[in-house]
């Protein structure tokens, strides 16, 4: 089981990154996810869903994404995660966390998220849903 | 009850608001604006003199339910034609009302407590009003008029 998560801003700029047990391909993660952005950008206008399952893969890693109504993209690159439903719920809660960050008066949209509290909570979420 | 006239004095005795209700028919003379200032200042002084004359009380007057803090100052002036009541808040704002004969002290006090409430809403919460300056707030005037008609 392994997971790489990236939050991507509206100008395709990275806002936040986290990885757990991605050692073999750690350095490529950003590139792999970045290349999947085109796919999700094609898909996002064809449906009113926010969650995009398995849009791409690399070796035996899969990529899923979630697009917030404000066009911020949550991308994950993963291997052997528990279930599809867990991923969906993970994205839902992650969105709540992101909204709370957005509500902080000192945070502006598309700014890198440096908050330690946010990082901790995201890691808690991945423990909760994926046992990581 | 019939309110004939209303005065608001700031804590130093300056007149910040004066209004006669139904000036044509209410049987109270109109004065020049300068005279109103003098009236206000005089009442303020007499109020303080009366308070100074009153010896300290051992047992404070029983608590009232209106927020009127005027306990030992000039409280009421009676004349042939009208009564005048003075109400004072903890911040030193004086509300003076001149009412028809026969209006009870409780009724007048309640009226003035309501004026205080309107003052706190429409004067103090007006961001462009400067403390202790004459009140030129139209909303306040309208509300006071409504209140005087309703009382």
């Amino acid at each position: 089981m392994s997971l790489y998560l990236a939050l991507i801003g509206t100008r395709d700029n990275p806002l936040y990154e986290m990885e757990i047990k991605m050692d073999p391909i750690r350095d490529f993660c950003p590139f792999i996810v970045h290349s999947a952005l085109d796919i999700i950008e094609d898909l996002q206008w064809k449906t009113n869903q926010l969650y995009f399952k398995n849009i791409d893969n690399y070796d035996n890693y899969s990529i899923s994404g979630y697009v917030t109504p404000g066009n911020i993209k949550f991308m994950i690159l993963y291997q052997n995660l528990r279930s599809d439903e867990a991923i969906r719920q993970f994205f839902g809660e992650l969105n709540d966390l992101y909204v709370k960050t957005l509500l902080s008066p000192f945070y502006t949209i598309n700014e890198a998220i440096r908050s330690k509290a946010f990082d901790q909570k995201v890691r808690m979420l991945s423990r909760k849903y994926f046992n990581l | 009850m019939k309110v004939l006239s209303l005065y608001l004095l700031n804590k130093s005795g300056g007149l910040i608001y004066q209004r006669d209700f139904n000036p044509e028919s209410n049987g109270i003379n109109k004065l020049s604006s300068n005279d109103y200032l003098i009236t206000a200042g005089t009442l303020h002084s007499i109020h303080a003199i009366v308070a100074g004359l009153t010896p300290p009380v051992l047992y404070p007057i029983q608590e009232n339910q209106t927020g009127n803090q005027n306990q030992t100052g000039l409280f009421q002036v009676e004349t042939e034609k009208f009564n005048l009541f003075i109400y004072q808040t903890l911040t030193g704002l004086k509300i003076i009302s001149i009412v028809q004969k026969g209006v009870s002290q409780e009724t007048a006090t309640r009226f003035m407590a309501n004026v205080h409430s309107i003052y706190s809403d429409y004067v103090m919460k007006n961001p462009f009003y400067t403390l202790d300056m004459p009140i030129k707030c139209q909303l306040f005037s309208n509300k006071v008029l409504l209140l005087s008609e309703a009382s």
Partner: protein
Amino acid sequence: MSKPYKLIGEDVYKNRTEKINSELFTLTYGSVVAQLCRDYNNDYKKVNEQLESMGYNIGIRLIEEFLAKTNFGRCINFKETAEIISKVGFKMFLNTTPTVDNFSADGKQFNLILEDNPLAEFVELPDDNKAVKELWYSNVLVGVLKGALQMVQLDVDVSFVKDILRGDPSTEIKLRLNKILKDEIPAGED
């Protein structure tokens, strides 16, 4: 002897105050503070001062509303003042009741501990290593208390001593009574 301030506070809050959406309020205050920080180039001492003076202007006005709605008379001592500030004042305007703590032996100083601070929900201070040391995010409260108390002739020093936002275990405001402005107490009050 002690009056049921808790009940009075709840009654006033429930029946006699206008209410707004708390998130609108929090976000409005947040954008004011953030804008001040930008305007003063993150000179947080200036921001603190500015927040306090804004609060002062609110306090000297708000006290009138407080008196009109509660009909309170003058407090017998500073302990009573503390009770009223916490159980009625904060309850009425912010729907929270801070704990009064650490009353000094001379009865002139106490701390208000805010278990929950509606101004600071969602807030994370800027991570420039300066804000957590210098900025008192909710400093407007200091000004409000100072202004309001001054209008009822109490000269009080008010300051924040702790803030959860800075990583402290609680949010605390210290109030110290300097003097009662006896000369300014309006005549006629018994």
